[in-house]
């Protein structure tokens, strides 16, 4: 009986303790006297896998860039920055020779060697491993370790774009599996400035500083990456101090720019969101119809209303990149009269009906509604079908659409987007899901890709590609996107294209 009473007391004490802890936590107010060494970062989507060989999504990528290192990475100026590699040489136009830094240690203490690099690429090039990076690595003839610290890649033929496909995070041969499955995806071991301490899916990822990092170790001790699906709640937590770094709803950006305690960073991405067109469709296969659709909508207006932070797009080439040549591009100022004329010339004076598929989401719904309004004025009756992403995506995948709207991401090189209009990439062997065929464009794509080390010659070819693209309109350009991030101004941080969260290694509290 006595024992029971004691336990009762204990329970009571425990409850009180819990209550007090709760109150203390509630009352806590962020920074103390000493500068902090932790960081609370909020995101709306969780990582998928922390095995970089299997990761393709942005949210896994953001974590993996802190856990692992690549031979080199592409910085915010689109330039190559060596990382694990000490040197990169090109003995001839199909050979890439990397020398590794010595003494780089994985989080388990083993040294990184050329064998790990070879292993990483070989598993991704193995069809049975099922890596999403398999296709990008097809141009590689061989990858070999010449000695403990030298790796040689050989391309099948001269290829200007292959270098971007060599930008992969290196996994340890002695731990990472060569078959899908296993626990490496959630117990990752890399060489990066942070180690994984804990990953509760859809809750939190805790990263700890890796003391033995081969460059200067991180200044932050801990990073808590918190998964908070609602943008409004992330915003509230940021304002309240529970988060130090997060995106915010675009409607709040202007307000945050004024806010004395926060810094807003933003850049234009290398992403392009067009209206995908199915060229197997009898009506849409006609150039005049596609041009009429472009003339029939005030895209600048539409984009500024629906996608607040986006920039209206003119072609598949991204402004500010080396190949972008606006002077050769044909533009389509809003002109409903001209659109009607073109439709009449194409044989559709009374217009036609067409469907647009997108995934669900407020902006997509608004986009469809406004587009429908514009096109009704030129006699085109647009039906907008939305479905959740997986369903939409499988329709896109199978070419089961007339018009569709979503994006392409990360054009480190113009070829990465342009090749999707190559007739050789019509599914199942490629991502030309609109089945677009244009021999002239095919030839330019092939030729430009084979020119290694002469960017000007490539740029010249791409001028012609841009002229063709904007004249023929294989897709109707809609928007380029921007990415914003907001952080506590006491944190030393910078938000840059490509580099993104890599900066966290050097971040600290002022």
């Amino acid at each position, binding site marked *: 009986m006595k024992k029971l009473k004691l336990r009762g007391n204990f329970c009571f004490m425990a409850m009180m303790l819990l209550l007090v802890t709760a109150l203390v936590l509630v009352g806590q107010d962020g920074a103390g006297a000493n500068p902090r060494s932790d960081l609370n970062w909020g995101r709306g989507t969780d990582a998928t896998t922390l095995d970089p060989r299997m990761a393709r999504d942005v949210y896994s990528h953001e974590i993996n860039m802190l856990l692992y290192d690549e031979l080199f990475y592409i910085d915010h100026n689109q330039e190559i920055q060596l990382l694990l590699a000490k040197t990169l040489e090109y003995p001839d136009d199909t050979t890439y020779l990397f020398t590794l830094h010595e003494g780089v240690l994985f989080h388990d203490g083993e040294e990184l060697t050329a064998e790990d690099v070879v292993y990483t690429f070989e598993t991704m090039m193995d069809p049975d491993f099922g890596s*999403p990076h398999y*296709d990008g690595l097809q141009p590689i003839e061989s990858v070999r370790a010449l000695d403990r610290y030298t790796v040689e890649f050989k391309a099948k033929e001269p290829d200007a774009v292959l270098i971007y496909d060599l930008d992969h995070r290196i996994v340890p041969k002695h731990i990472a599996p060569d078959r899908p499955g296993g626990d490496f995806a959630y117990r990752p071991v890399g060489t990066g400035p942070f180690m994984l301490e804990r990953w509760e899916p859809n809750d939190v990822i805790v990263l700890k500083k890796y003391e033995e990092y081969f460059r200067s170790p991180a200044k932050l001790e801990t990073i808590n990456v918190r998964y908070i699906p609602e943008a409004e709640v992330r915003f509230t937590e940021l304002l*309240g101090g529970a988060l130090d770094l997060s995106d915010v709803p675009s409607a709040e950006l202007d307000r945050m720019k004024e806010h004395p305690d926060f810094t807003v960073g933003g850049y234009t991405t290398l992403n392009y969101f067009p209206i995908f067109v199915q060229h197997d469709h009898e009506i849409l296969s006609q150039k005049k119809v596609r041009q009429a659709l472009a003339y029939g909508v005030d895209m600048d207006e539409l984009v500024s209303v629906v996608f607040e932070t986006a920039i209206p797009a003119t072609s598949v080439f991204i402004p500010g990149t080396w190949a972008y040549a606006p002077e050769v591009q044909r533009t389509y100022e809003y002109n409903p009269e001209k659109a009607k004329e073109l439709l009449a010339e194409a044989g559709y004076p009374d217009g036609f009906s067409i469907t647009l598929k997108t995934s669900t989401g407020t902006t997509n719904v608004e986009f469809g509604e406004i587009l429908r309004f514009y096109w009704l004025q030129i006699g085109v009756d647009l039906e907008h079908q939305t479905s959740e992403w997986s369903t939409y995506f499988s329709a896109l995948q199978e070419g089961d659409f007339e018009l569709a709207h979503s994006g392409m991401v990360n054009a480190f090189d113009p070829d990465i987007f342009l090749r999707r209009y190559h007739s050789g990439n019509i599914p199942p062997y490629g991502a030309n899901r609109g089945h677009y065929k244009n021999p002239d464009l095919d030839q330019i794509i092939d030729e430009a890709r084979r020119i290694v080390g002469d960017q000007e010659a490539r740029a010249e070819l791409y001028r012609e590609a841009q002229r063709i693209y904007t004249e023929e309109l294989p897709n109707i350009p809609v928007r380029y996107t921007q990415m914003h991030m907001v952080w506590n101004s006491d944190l030393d941080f910078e938000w840059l294209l490509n580099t993104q969260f890599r900066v966290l290694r050097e971040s600290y509290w002022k």
Partner: protein
Amino acid sequence: MQTYILKRLIQAIPVLFIVTIIVFSLLHFLPGCPAANILGEEATGEQIQRLREAMGLNRPIHIQYLEWVGGILQGDFGTSLRDGREVFPTLMRRLPATVQLVIASLFISTIIGIPVGVISAIRQNSLLDSFTRIFALLGVSIPNFWLGLMLILLFSYQLGWLPASGRGTLAHLIMPAIALGTASAGLITRLTRSSMLEIIRTDFIRTARSKGLMERRVIYGHALKNALLPVTTIVGLQMGYGLGGALITEAVFAYPGIGHFTYERLLARDMPVVMGNLFLFALMFILINIFTDIAYGFLDPRIRYD
């Protein structure tokens, strides 16, 4: 009693079996493919087929089903198609959070719903009754995600009293439990009220009054006990629905339970996780129902289980 429970448990077996068939076929006829989701936007058809093969998704559908059910019988729910984690431990780690949330919300809804419903019934058509009815109606009608956001706006953003997201302390539980419990509170209030009104008019209550019992005894000793029967059914059902309804509340408060997690995995077509969760929920629903039926016996001695 034990025979009754045993009988109910045996009856549950075919139900669970049918659940596995429905869950499996519904999810497999859903458009979209986990491999395509992993591979991302620029994947080719060929690449998707390769990954499907590696994931074992290209095997005949009946083989996949039998493997899944066979696994469950041995306590193996398979592994996630996304990160390779084992499904059962992953779900079990998250289940307590949701159960805690549902129980807290039911606690809130019953301690509000039953007394308010009783008072409302005793004072039928008074001003108090009208107020209660309006609030009950509001409680049922307000979408819980909206209420959740409003609570965050007030208690986290304006007042800074409670954390807006996460789990760990009692303070983290308060707003999600209120947001989730409000609808049930409204429902329980309305049900208690109508059930009380019905009982109060019956003969045995008149008899109780006429033999001179104190009004309090009449209401709480006789009427309420009888009125609670339908309420018990609803509380039991609400517990089941709460598991599902927690999905939205969990999303709003970034509460690491099982509901929103499974929803996310459904969007990613991580079938083993979704199927495992639906199976667990079906099992829990059945157990809650058996428990509810047993609870009747305590409230109404006329109900026997032999």
